[in-house]
């Protein structure tokens, strides 16, 4: 789950990474006396989860007197289609230099990789493409608690040493917050020291339980309900509902739909060993999506019992067509149940997908 800037900065602060003085507001009237301690100018930053927020009009620099007026303006904007619900009001830092630092996962090396660039405030993917030498990288063994000094020297490559402790703190935040990405862009030097001017943290969904996060905000309501049922579920915009077991098989079903000229409405992996109720819930959930004409149920495997699956489909009793492909334990019983109720049964993945595409509106 992606944290917003002010949430990430709370964590940074606790871990000793300096951030500017600031507070969060939900309407312009919440700007109060605190703003008088921030010097002549302040920065108003929309708390929205989009990249390129500044360019999209999500950041306003203003003098203290016009802060309320400008906050009202910012609240009235949509930043890349997202309404502004919270604004971080922050002191304007007297920036001398800007840097980039991030820590992420290198899947191939199975280790965290730390990226550093002496130019900050930039699109780092563009820097990586156009000027790869400007980007320093070091890989750190996950059994280490701190970045060793030699590694830090190599990373900083002659840049002011005072950045070192902040980067090391960021590495600790990365580990302790179960982060998939910890990023400061820009990391800035000022006459009063080093500051994280922006903050980005993405927390591993599998570790939310131990990070005190109860609700995963990144999900839609239906996706959250699906999560409660234990499904992996993603909404798309086609007309063919998809229920499968296993991520790979379900993804492959989506690909076949597109191969045969159809469009999938969703991805739903019911997981292993799905029984009657799970299947019933899955079928109902997908049938509730607007624009679904036909639903493919493609289940295969050793643990999943086909008779249970069949009963689940019948129990859901939805109005849309259901095209079923079942293989595995108790297959014959499952087929018998569905045949009696007049469901469409097909033998292979190709056949079930072709049938659904022919039944769906495009």
């Amino acid at each position, binding site marked *: 789950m992606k944290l917003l800037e002010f949430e990430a900065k709370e964590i940074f602060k606790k871990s000793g990474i300096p951030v500017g003085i600031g507070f969060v507001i939900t309407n312009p009237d919440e700007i109060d006396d605190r703003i008088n301690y921030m010097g002549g100018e302040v920065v108003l930053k929309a708390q929205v989860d989009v990249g390129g927020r500044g360019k999209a009009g999500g950041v306003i620099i203003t003098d203290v007197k016009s802060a309320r007026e400008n906050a009202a303006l910012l609240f009235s904007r949509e930043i890349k289609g997202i309404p502004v619900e919270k604004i971080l009001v922050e002191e304007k830092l007297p920036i001398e230099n800007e840097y980039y630092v991030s820590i992420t*996962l290198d*899947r*191939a090396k*199975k*280790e*965290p990789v730390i990226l550093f660039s002496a130019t900050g405030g930039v699109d780092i*993917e563009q820097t990586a493409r156009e000027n790869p030498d400007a980007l320093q990288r070091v890989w750190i*063994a*996950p*059994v280490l608690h701190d970045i060793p000094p030699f590694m830090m020297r190599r990373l900083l490559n002659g840049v002011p040493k005072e950045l070192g402790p902040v980067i090391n703190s960021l590495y600790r935040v990365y*580990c302790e917050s*179960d982060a*998939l990405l910890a990023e400061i862009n820009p990391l800035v030097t000022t006459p009063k020291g080093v500051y994280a001017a922006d903050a980005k943290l993405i927390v*591993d*969904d*599998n*570790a939310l*339980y*131990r990070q005190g996060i109860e609700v995963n905000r990144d999900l839609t309501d239906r996706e959250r309900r699906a999560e409660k049922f234990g499904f*992996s579920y*993603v909404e*798309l915009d086609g007309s063919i509902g998809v229920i*499968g*077991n*296993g*991520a*790979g*098989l*379900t*993804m*492959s079903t*989506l*690909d*076949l*739909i*597109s*191969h045969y000229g159809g469009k*999938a409405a969703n*991805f739903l*992996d019911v997981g*292993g060993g799905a029984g009657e109720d799970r299947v019933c819930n899955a079928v109902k959930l997908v049938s509730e999506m607007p624009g679904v004409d036909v639903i493919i149920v493609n289940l*295969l*495997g*050793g*643990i999943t019992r086909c008779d249970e699956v069949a009963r689940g489909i019948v129990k859901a009793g939805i109005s849309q067509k259901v095209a079923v492909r079942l*293989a*595995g334990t108790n297959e014959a019983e499952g087929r018998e149940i569905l045949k009696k109720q007049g469901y469409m049964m097909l033998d*292979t*993945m*190709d056949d079930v997908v072709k049938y659904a595409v022919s039944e769906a509106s495009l």
Partner: protein
Amino acid sequence: MIYGDKSTKVIVQGATGNQGAFHIDLMNRYAEEVGGFGVVAGVTPGKGGQEVHSVPVYNSVREALLEHDASTSVLFVPGSAAGDSVMEAAYNGLELVVAITEHIPVHDAMKAISYARLEGCSVIGPNCPGTLSPGELKLGIMPVNLSVPGNVGVISRSGTLTYEVVNELTRAGIGQSTIVGIGGDPIIGQTFVDVLERFEQDSQTKAVVLIGEVGGNLEEEGASYTDLPIVTYIAGVSAPPEKRMGHAGAIVAGGEGDAASKIRRLEAAGITVADKPSDIPRLLEEML
């Protein structure tokens, strides 16, 4: 047989839960069928002294190994404790851990796999169906009735999609040497390269089917490694960017790892890519 044979003795960590108990039974039925040892002991902290399908359960890996000889562990421990269990197995000298568990925090997986490597222990998974050498050894949860012994190795990041492909192979009369599900998480122990290295050393394996997914670049790295004839299939061609398709690893982010560019890179390296799973047997036959 690249991860063991009939003579391999296995322990199961997380033996007393539903999944653990169910699969101890299935693994031992298969062992009986092929004349192997199968699961000789189970481990669940606090449940020592119980039995699961006649397999004795111990409180720790150490206690189990005092009474039984074993080289391999299959793990059904819940995600929050699975990293610890991998390290326990490695510390006690096991050679191979097959981690079936899903939803392990990435940082735990990173640490545990890194530690296991220091102890000389290989890890398959996490979030994987395990491995099956038809007629020899089953480690994990793969259904056995779809497979027949033969000369084609299968490596995959998915579970059920592997069964789908194995089913297609078997129907086309193509048997399998070993089937390995390496898992769908961003951080996994055995990668395509590791498994292919083992297939290269294996005299039984004459060709390989590699089933990949969107996300990362492990498929390209793996496929270009081997001299064995190889057919690949990449799932997720239709996956939109930034949406996680079930597997935590299957996410197209920052323009990296999308299926189209993956397939382009594979084809540029002269590797055969199947459009759909049902095309795989024909492509293999053309090669062999």
